[in-house]
Every structure is written in structure tokens, then in C-alpha cells.
């Protein structure tokens, strides 16, 4: 290595700075060890600081207690709470004398050595014949009339089912023989042979069948005798599904709270078919009759009694007993499944929403697309004025359209009619305005006619969108109550309607801005063609001032909204003057260069916004959205969608930048305009990378959504965090397992799909 260096240096002495080159490299060589030493010292200091600040403490790792806690957690994690067994208590009892005196009968499997002693003395208890590694609790049953026991010790049997433990005899002397009891919990049933376990949930001492009989009637008692009773039915999920109050003359009014009762009824009550049909006083209790479909399982359903006048709760009871299978999937596993589903869907919604925003935006963040877009100063200032004015007009028009359609909003038939007419007209007019083949140069009259027709068609299409939004909303709401189990599809349609409604205003604003900008640019060309240069210059400067002032005032309004300055001079006057000056400067500078490269400015602005949004973690965004829309998966998906939009737009735009320029050139050369060029030469090239990046992002989003719950953003994170805080590591283990499985599956699936389609 050194050899080569020598040679190159001696080979080309003339190429360098003859005299200067040699000593400087020599000097560098001499300084080198010193520089290395300084580098090492700096590195040591930096890492020392890093250790200091990250509080690296290896004694913690080796400490006994820490290690014990770690073991406990790891073992809990290794035993995820997936299956619940009901247990049966089994006991073995043996007599003991405290102090020595009374005769005791020994037990072959539970031997106490010695079999008597004074309080405080130690005896050895040896157990045999237990299940291997079984957990045994040893209790002392004192000689009292009360049903109490004292815990002596707990121990695990060895692999032969034996244990031996020393216990200290309690201070409970008695003349009679007392008892030591070994208690074990026998799990009931096995997976092969599951057992029904009966629980007397309503505590009436009778075995009630939770499955409704042929007549569908069930009568039960609720504690709490009140003058005007009201009873609510509560499903296993804790939602009130039916509510009946018995007024002066009893009348069953399903779901309607009458009188002054203030009882929370779940707004969207799942329609289960279980209804209260009668309430009667029966002794100190209320006898409630309910009716439901035969075969209905009432396990874990409860009824709550209230005072029908004040709304005071009077008592809650299980409607029937419950029968459960043992072993069964644990409640934790059930909740985890629900939540992991929520997580995956959250990621799906966020990815889709982000994708829809990112695809169009990715083009304006691609340098190769935007580089060539430039406008004359005249057009720029005219467009700058036209855009906000057009957007405002668009919003006004959208409001007017809404008022126009409002009278029909309840009449579905009329809405469908308006929709069909609007869409058909829009299509027909658009076809009329746009000839498939442009065979001749259009005359001015033709151009005007086309432009007007296009605007009309666009307006009609917008009306169609609005009507569609209204239709979706009403149809969705109607469908929700009819569809039963598939009611969520109705809700989805209604939500889509609402999204269209919002989109309608946005699109109207964009369309207004677009139309006016187009007009402005035509006007700009006309002005430049017809007016002498000096006049154009003056116009440019004047309109530049106007455009600058307009935008500066708009920005001033935004600032005012944030800081509530509310002072005409600060938020209107000063920005207007500053904006006008900037506008004049830009106009003057643009006139020197001829054209303004507006494309690059938009490109840089878009890039900056994306990079800023991307650098904020979704976890942080979720906090803001939780404040805005409340805790839950919706907040999480909004946060994730925003981040996804920015991240995907950047990734996509880089793909657009890296496509081969040849086809673009070829398509442009055929006379294609910008839109055609993008569709025929850019889009085919970017489809595979777009698919690939979307999958990748969906993968990231699933991972991300697992922790959004930590800040209230929905998904599995919320229960994971709860369980960790409650030190319920076995439940946490289930959630971690679920996350691991889902993430691994997603990873695998997305890589397979990418392989196939890219």
C-alpha cells in the first residue's frame, strides 16, 4: 500500500504543486499519529459521556434480586395466558396435637414428624402421592367454630409427587386434636375431553339452565324493591341492550327511558332478541320476565334494577347460571384476538388513506417532472391571484349547491333521479366538449364553447358527487338497522358518504381554483401577445404587488388564528405591505430572467413539508389526534395515515425521479401533453415500485400500530401496556405473541407479494 503511494507521488511530481506538494504530504504524515491519538481520546470521551447519560450499570444485570424478577417475567412470558382451566379443590387432612396430649390418627400420604408439639415448635411435613410438580398449599384449621384457616406454607411437589417442608406450629393450643390440610387445585378437563362446569352465577342455589327453552320465556328475580321499578338488560360485553320502566300503569317500552330516569343506554344497541316483557313485585325482590329466541344462551347476561323515578341503582343480578367448558380459550386470548384484528385494520385504513393522498402528491415532489415547469411573470401573478379567489368561489358554490339539494335530502328516489340525470348530463356534455381526435386547429368560438361546456359538465359531476354523498349517508344509516350482523357495512357506506361530503367541498374549491387559474393563464398569454413590453412590465409589477399582498394577508390570517393577535395593523396591514414589496421584487427579478421556474419552487415546498411531517413519529402525532378525536383506533389511524402519506409521497417521488427518461422523451416527442406523458410513460414505469413500497409501508404500519395504543391510539398496544402496568405478564405474553405472529406473517406475506408482482 505504502509502496503504491510512494510511486504515484514520485511518478507525477509535475502534476502536483512541485515544491508545495511534497512537504505538505510529509507534514500530513508526521501529524498523522497525533491526529489518531486525538481521535481516540475524543472517542473515549464521547463514549464515556454516552455511558454516563444512558446510565449503564452492569451491577444491575448481575444483581440477585434483579435476576429473580427477570426470571419471573421470562417464565410468565413463556406461559402465555391462552387457556383457562376451571379448577377443583382437593384436600387431604391429617390430625395434629398442639400441644402434645390428644390422640391423633395418622394419614399415610401426609406424615407429620413429630405428630405433636408446642406452639412455635417446628415440625416436618412429608407428602407423598401428589401429582408431579403439583402446587400444594398447607393450611392449619384451628379448633374454632368459625370457618377460618391459617396458611402455613406452600410448596411444589417433586417429580415423584413428593414434598417435604418444615413448618412452625401456630399459637393455637387446644385440648382436642386439630387439623393440617393440604390443598391442591386440580384442573378440570383436558383438551381431548372438555368438561362443562356449572357456576351458580345468580346465587339462588338452584341449577338454572342458561339456554332458553322452547317457549323462550325466563323468569328471574332481581334484588331491590322500589315503587316504580325500572330494569335494564346488560349483555356479557357490559352494554345495556334493553330497558323497561314500569310506570303507574305498566307498559313495556323497549329502549325508551321515561319519567326522570337517567340511565346510560348504549346508543347503538346490538339487537339480540332478548327483551323484558314483564316486571312484578315479588316479596322484597322484583320478578322479571324476559323473552327471547329459543336456544338463546343467557350465560353472563345481567339485569340491573333502578328506581324508576330517581334513577338510583337498586341491584344487579345474573339472569341465569352459567355453564362453561373447561379448559377453554382464555378471556385474554379472546380480547387479544379482537385487538390484533383492530390493529391490522387500523394499519390497513391508515395505509389506504395515506396511499390515496401520496400518489398524486408524489408527482409534485419529483424533480424530473417539476423541473421543466415554468411560467411567465404575468401568468404567475395572475394565477397567484386567481387561485385563492377561485377556491373561495368554489366553496361558495359548493354551499349553494348544498342548499339547492337540501330539500331532496330525505327523498331517496328524488336523489337517485338527480344523480342519474347529473351524471348522464355531465358525461354527455363532456363527450360533446372533448372530441376524441383533434384533427384541426379549433377556432376561438369553438374554444369558448368547449371551455363553457367543460365547466358545466364539471359542475354537474360535482353535484352528482354531492347527491351521492347524501344518498350514501341516508342509505347507509337505513341499512345499518336492517342488516343486523352486517350493520357495519351500512355504517361504512354512511361514513363514505360523509367522506364524499367533505371531499365535495375540497374538490369544489380545487376545481374553482383550477378553472380560474386556467382563465388567468389564458389571460396572461393574451396580455403578453397583445401589449407592448413596457406595459407588460408595469402590469407585472402592479399585479405582483397585488398577488404578494393577497397571499401575505392570507398567511397573516393563519398566524392570527394561531396567536390570536386580532389587530388589523399586525395581521392585515403590515403583511399586505410586506407582501406587496416581496411581490414587486419577485416580479422584477422574474422579468430579468423571462420565466419563473415555478415547478422547482413547488417541488422544494412539497419536499420540505413531506420531510417535516415524516420526521415526526406517528406516536407523537397520535397524541395530538387523541386530543382531537378522542382515544381509540380512529385517532391512531389518522396519525398513521398522515405519516404514511408523507413517507409514501417521498418514497414514491424518489421512484418517479429514478425512472428511465427515454420513454418520457419519446412520448413527449409525439406531441403528447404533460398529462398524456405522465400517463403513458411515467405511470407504467412506477407501478411496480409503488406496489412494492405500499406493501412495505403496510408492513411498517402494522408494526407501528401495535404500539400506538401506548398513547391511546387504539390497537393492541393499549391492553399490552395495561397488562404490563398491572404486572400481568402472562396476559402481556399473549399480546406479545400475537404481535410477533402478525408482524412475522405480514413480513412474509408482503415479501411474497412483492416477489410476485414486481
Amino acid at each position: 500500500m505504502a509502496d503504491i503511494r510512494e510511486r504515484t507521488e514520485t511518478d507525477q511530481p509535475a502534476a502536483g504543486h512541485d515544491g508545495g506538494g511534497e512537504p505538505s504530504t510529509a507534514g500530513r504524515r508526521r501529524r498523522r499519529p497525533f491526529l489518531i491519538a486525538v481521535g481516540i481520546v475524543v472517542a473515549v470521551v464521547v463514549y464515556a459521556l454516552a455511558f454516563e447519560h444512558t446510565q449503564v450499570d452492569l451491577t444491575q444485570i448481575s444483581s440477585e434480586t434483579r435476576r429473580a424478577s427477570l426470571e419471573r417475567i421470562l417464565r410468565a412470558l413463556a406461559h402465555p395466558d391462552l387457556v383457562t382451566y376451571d379448577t377443583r379443590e382437593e384436600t387431604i387432612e391429617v390430625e395434629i396435637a398442639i400441644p402434645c396430649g390428644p390422640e391423633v390418627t395418622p394419614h399415610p400420604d401426609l406424615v407429620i414428624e413429630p405428630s405433636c408439639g408446642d406452639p412455635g415448635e417446628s415440625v416436618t411435613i412429608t407428602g407423598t402421592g401428589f401429582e408431579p410438580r403439583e402446587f400444594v398449599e398447607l393450611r392449619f384449621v384451628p379448633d374454632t367454630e368459625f370457618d377460618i384457616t391459617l396458611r402455613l406454607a406452600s410448596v411444589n411437589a417433586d417429580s415423584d409427587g413428593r414434598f417435604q417442608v418444615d413448618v412452625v406450629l401456630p399459637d393455637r393450643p387446644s385440648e382436642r386434636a386439630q387439623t393440617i390440610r393440604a390443598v391442591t387445585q386440580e384442573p378440570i378437563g383436558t383438551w381431548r375431553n372438555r368438561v362443562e362446569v356449572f357456576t351458580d352465577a345468580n346465587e339462588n342455589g338452584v341449577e338454572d339452565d342458561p339456554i332458553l327453552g322452547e317457549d323462550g320465556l325466563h323468569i328471574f328475580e332481581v334484588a331491590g324493591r322500589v315503587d316504580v321499578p325500572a330494569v335494564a338488560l346488560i349483555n356479557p360485553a357490559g352494554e345495556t341492550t334493553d330497558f323497561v320502566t314500569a310506570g303507574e300503569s305498566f307498559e313495556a317500552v323497549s329502549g325508551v327511558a321515561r319519567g326522570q330516569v337517567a340511565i346510560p343506554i348504549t346508543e347503538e344497541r346490538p339487537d339480540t332478541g332478548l327483551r323484558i316483557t314483564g316486571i312484578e313485585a315479588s316479596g322484597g325482590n322484583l320478578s322479571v320476565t324476559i323473552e327471547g329466541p329459543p336456544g338463546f344462551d343467557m350465560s353472563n347476561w345481567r339485569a340491573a334494577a333502578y328506581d324508576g323515578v330517581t334513577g338510583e341503582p337498586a341491584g344487579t343480578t345474573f339472569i341465569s347460571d352459567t355453564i362453561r367448558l373447561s379448559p377453554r380459550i382464555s378471556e385474554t386470548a379472546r380480547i387479544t384476538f379482537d385487538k390484533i384484528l383492530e390493529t391490522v385494520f387500523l394499519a390497513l385504513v391508515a395505509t389506504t388513506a395515506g396511499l390515496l393522498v401520496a400518489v398524486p402528491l408524489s408527482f409534485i415532489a419529483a424533480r424530473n417532472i417539476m423541473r421543466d415547469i415554468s411560467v411567465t411573470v404575468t401568468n404567475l401573478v395572475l394565477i397567484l391571484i386567481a387561485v385563492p379567489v377561485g377556491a373561495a368561489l368554489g366553496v361558495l358554490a359548493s354551499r349553494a349547491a348544498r342548499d339547492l339539494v337540501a330539500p331532496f335530502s330525505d327523498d331517496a328516489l328524488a336523489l337517485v333521479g338527480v344523480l342519474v340525470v347529473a351524471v348522464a348530463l355531465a358525461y354527455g356534455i363532456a363527450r360533446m366538449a372533448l372530441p376524441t381526435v383533434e384533427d384541426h386547429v379549433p377556432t376561438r368560438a369553438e374554444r369558448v364553447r368547449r371551455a363553457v361546456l367543460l365547466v358545466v359538465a364539471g359542475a354537474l359531476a360535482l353535484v352528482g358527487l354531492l347527491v351521492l354523498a347524501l344518498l350514501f349517508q341516508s342509505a347507509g344509516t337505513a341499512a345499518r338497522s336492517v342488516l343486523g350482523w352486517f350493520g357495519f357495512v351500512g355504517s361504512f357506506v354512511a361514513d363514505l358518504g360523509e367522506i364524499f361530503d367533505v371531499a365535495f367541498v375540497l374538490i369544489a374549491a380545487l376545481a374553482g381554483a383550477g378553472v380560474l387559474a386556467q382563465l388567468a393563464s389564458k389571460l396572461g398569454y393574451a396580455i403578453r401577445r397583445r401589449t407592448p413590453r413596457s406595459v407588460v412590465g408595469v402590469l407585472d409589477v402592479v399585479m405582483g404587488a397585488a398577488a404578494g399582498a393577497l397571499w401575505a394577508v392570507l398567511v397573516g390570517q393563519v398566524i392570527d388564528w394561531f396567536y390570536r393577535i386580532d389587530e388589523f395593523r399586525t395581521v392585515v396591514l403590515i403583511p399586505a405591505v410586506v407582501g406587496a414589496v416581496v411581490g414587486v421584487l419577485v416580479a422584477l427579478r422574474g422579468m430579468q430572467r423571462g420565466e419563473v421556474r415555478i415547478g422547482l419552487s413547488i417541488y422544494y415546498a412539497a419536499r420540505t413539508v413531506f420531510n417535516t411531517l415524516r420526521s415526526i413519529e406517528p406516536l407523537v402525532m397520535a397524541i395530538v389526534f387523541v386530543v382531537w378525536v378522542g382515544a381509540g383506533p380512529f385517532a391512531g389511524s389518522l396519525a398513521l395515515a398522515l405519516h404514511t402519506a408523507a413517507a409514501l409521497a417521498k418514497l414514491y417521488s424518489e421512484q418517479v425521479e429514478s425512472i428511465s427518461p427515454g420513454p418520457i422523451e419519446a412520448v413527449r416527442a409525439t406531441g403528447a401533453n404533460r398529462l398524456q406523458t405522465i400517463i403513458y410513460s411515467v405511470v407504467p414505469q412506477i407501478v411496480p415500485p409503488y406496489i412494492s413500497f405500499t406493501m412495505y409501508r403496510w408492513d411498517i404500519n402494522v408494526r407501528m400500530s401495535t404500539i400506538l395504543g401506548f398513547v391511546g391510539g387504539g390497537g393492541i398496544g393499549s391492553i399490552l401496556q395495561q397488562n404490563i402496568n398491572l404486572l400481568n405478564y402472562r396476559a402481556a405474553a399473549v399480546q406479545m405473541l400475537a404481535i410477533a405472529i402478525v408482524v412475522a406473517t405480514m413480513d412474509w406475506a408482503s415479501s411474497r407479494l412483492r416477489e410476485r408482482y414486481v
Partner: protein
Amino acid sequence: MLQVEHLTKVYENGTVALEDVSFTVPDGQFLAIIGLSGSGKSTLLRCINRLIEPTEGRILWNGEDITAASQEDLRRFRRRVGMVFQHFNLVHRSKVLTNVLAGRLGYTNPAMALFNRFSKEDVAGALAQLERVGLREKAFARADELSGGQQQRVGIARALMQDPEMILADEPVASLDPVLAHSIMRYLEAINEEDGVTVLCSLHFLDLVHRYSDRAIALKEGKLVFDGLPSEIDDEKFKEIYGQEAERVG
């Protein structure tokens, strides 16, 4: 008739690609453009249809000033000027037919692009052009499944779809082997002779110039250094165009 007057192109980084180039091409001529790599041949061809904006000078097509044309006029001019590229510049993931139909974009309404629609006549025309270059059966194959020579024939079909009055060919055979080169050149020759289309074609090999072109111009470092019949390029001229160390290979 194409008139190039005092054409100069200076790139943003200061490179002078063309310097005061003037020449006239009568309708129906097969003009070869020769010169070393980097002598400005590609820039010249791209300035003619304004894929690259000229810095100075004018380009007149049938008396109309292309350099001053508005976007709409430019679109109308470009659609009558086919272009063939050294690297074919097909959209690889699109079908051959779609690539050929792209030649029709200058005639179709941009809004139709949103629905990816072409008229029935255009589709029939595209199939006919593919027939002409012998690739009818490949119409529904993906463009990147084709060999180099086939891709260039698709490129020619795309140019023909434009119903061109002039074809700008930027080293159309430089990426192909000699046998294929002749087959591609014969297509251009046929278009020139049968359809009377003006062809401007930059070439590397002098034997191709001798064989196919009516006239040749030569560029050296952006300047026009030769304008005449191909047969007039003797050894002295050759050294003038390609430099003293150059040797003739073909």
C-alpha cells in the same frame, strides 16, 4: 422544408453543444448527420422538435417558426415529426400495441388518456403499422420481451403512427449489430422513398451514410464542418471531421 438558422445551444453548465448551425433540408430528403460522440448530433435533433430548447437561432418548418411556437402549436408540429431513438425508448412494461398507439397521442384528446382509450381507427392503424414492420403477432406482448431489433421496429411503427412528414432518427442503429442495422435502415429508406417522408438520421458508420443517405452534414464540437454529398467525404474530409488520429473502419 426544414430550415435551421444560426442555431446555438448552450447548456446551463456552460457547455456549448451547438454553435451557429445553419442548413436547409428540402422535403423528401434523406439527410445523414455525422460526427464524433458529443459533437452535438443528438442536441441538434432534439432542438428541431424542441425536446431541448435552443438558446439562439430559429427553426422554420414550411415557413413557420417552431422556436417561437406556443405549446399548442408545438404539439401540432411535434405530432407530424416522428422520432426514433438509439435506445428505442419504449415503455418496457407496456404492451407493444400501447407503445405504438403512443404515437397517436398528439392527435387524441388528453382527457381520453385518463381512461386509457384510443379510437378504433387508431387501434386498427397501430396494428397495420406493426404489420408493416413485421411484428403483428407481437402486438400484445410486453415491450421488454422483444429483442433489440424488434424493439427498434416498434419504435419505427410508433413514429409511423404519427403520420409523419419528417422523421428524426437519433443513431437508430448504434445499439444493434450490423445485420440488424441494415434491416432497420431499410425500413427508414422505405419510409423515405415510398411515403416521401423527410428523414434526418444521425449515423456512426460511413458505409451506412454512403448507402442510404442523399446528403450528409457533419458536426464537430457543435459546429457544422461539412455539408454535401456522402461521396464527397474523402480521407481528408474524414480526418477533418473525426480528428487526425481517426481511422476508417467501415
